[in-house]
């Protein structure tokens, strides 16, 4: 990796001041950033180590939970209140990476991880995300892992996170702090679609620091009927081809409210709003789930190697909703 200067931030204000320096980056767990630095995809001239900041707590707030940005993924997944009230988040985190990586990776870092598109990683290939206006290797290339929703002619990369798919489904809020003070970003607005500027992954400004992720009290109603389904090329320790976070509020067999989000299909965690609208007020049965899957997948567009994701997505939505309705029981 390229040489860089190292700064250890001891408080939030110092971290935010330091990030103003040219080509500086925050580092927390480093599980994605260091990987990218070894490949020369990321070449920061300064790393600001934020691991000593006091953002390592999970606390109850307004009936929901505030997850500190620096809580490790493994600790978030296994926190008693997360397991009890937001099992979807626990399941999604535990479906991702390996125990070793989850022990190092943080909540904030999970949001900021970059695509695993092979053309993005390979500096010998063109990539509009890595080098704006250089072209896209994936459009005409091997696109098995690429997007089927919200793509542009410049980028068909996917967001790799599992945790973020659950956070999108549950309408989490991202708390950030910048030179002008704090602000909140609704989860749906945190990550971006590629459009003409695929080099910009998120709406977090360059000089802002993620401090926490809030899980709302309103999402408690889904705890009894939620499930994270991940379909991948091997049984563990692989990124999703397609994943579905399904959460239902069912009373007397009727769906009061539904939340569905998908991973592995778009440049951001894909909130399946068409499926959600279709499900509301319907009976929690297979025909409703099929209708929802159909409604959502209608607008999907595949490329040569990832067309299979459209049928896979349909089936994954039905299966995830079925298991969620069955209180998470797979049989």
């Amino acid at each position: 990796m390229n040489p860089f200067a190292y700064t250890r931030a001891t408080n939030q204000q110092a971290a935010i001041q330091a990030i103003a320096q040219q080509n500086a980056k925050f580092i927390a767990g480093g599980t994605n950033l260091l990987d990218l630095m070894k490949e020369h995809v990321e070449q920061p001239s300064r790393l600001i180590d934020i691991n000593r900041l006091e953002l390592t707590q999970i606390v109850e707030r307004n009936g929901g939970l505030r997850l500190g940005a620096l809580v490790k993924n493994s600790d978030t997944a296994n926190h008693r209140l997360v397991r009890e009230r937001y099992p979807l988040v626990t399941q999604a985190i535990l479906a991702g990476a390996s125990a070793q990586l989850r022990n190092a990776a943080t909540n904030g870092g999970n949001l900021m991880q970059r695509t695993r598109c092979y053309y993005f990683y390979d500096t010998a290939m063109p990539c509009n995300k890595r080098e704006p206006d250089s072209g896209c290797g994936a459009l005409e290339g091997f696109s098995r892992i690429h997007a089927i929703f919200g793509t542009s002619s410049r980028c068909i990369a996917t967001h790799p996170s599992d945790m973020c798919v659950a956070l999108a489904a549950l309408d989490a809020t991202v708390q950030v702090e910048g030179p002008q003070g704090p602000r909140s970003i609704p989860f749906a607005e945190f990550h971006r679609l590629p459009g003409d500027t695929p080099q910009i992954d998120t709406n977090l400004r360059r000089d802002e620091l993620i401090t926490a992720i809030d899980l709302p009290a309103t999402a408690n109603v889904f705890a009894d009927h939620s499930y994270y389904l991940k379909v991948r090329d091997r049984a563990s320790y692989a990124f999703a081809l397609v994943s579905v976070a399904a959460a239902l509020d069912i009373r007397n067999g009727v769906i009061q409210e539904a939340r569905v989000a998908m991973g592995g299909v778009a440049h951001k965690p894909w909130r399946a709003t068409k499926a959600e609208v279709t499900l509301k007020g319907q009976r929690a049965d297979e025909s409703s789930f099929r209708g929802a899957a159909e409604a959502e997948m209608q607008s999907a567009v595949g490329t040569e190697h990832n067309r299979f994701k459209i049928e896979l997505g349909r089936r994954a939505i039905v299966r995830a909703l079925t298991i969620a309705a069955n209180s998470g029981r797979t049989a």
Partner: protein
Amino acid sequence: MSNEETVAVRLRVNGTNYGLRLDPRTTLLNLLREKLDLPGTKKGCDHGQCGACTIIIDGRRINSCLALAVIYDGSEITTVEGLSKGDELHPLQTAFVRHEGFQCGYCTSGQLCSAVAMLNEVDQGTASHVTADVRKEGNVVLTDDEIRERMSGNICRCGAYPGIIAAIREVTQQRGV
């Protein structure tokens, strides 16, 4: 590299204290192997995909290839060299030998460190991807499926997985998990 560009780092590794000045690019993996004369920890992929470099830091397993030493200043590390008590092997090491939990041996130190930390995670009641109901807390029943899932961050190219599972299963039975 001049002194201004290096960073002071203190670490305790297998019970020995080290005071170091390091290029901030130094990963824990390179530090252990190249500067501290502890080559037991192996470099496989160097990208967090194989688990050969797994070490235990402050009681938790991580990939040392994706860890900058400067970030872990003040931490306590156990590597495969620190598992045994002199000539007395750790029970998992003995079980790996008995069940042939390796062939070429390259992934073994990572497998061992990972398994030691994994059993601690089980003691703490952590859930895994194959846990039937994550809302239910309490004792983890360490089935073979659970062992496979919890050890999935350690790849063995020789395919010694049946021996690895058997070794871990034996130790958990001895411990009464």
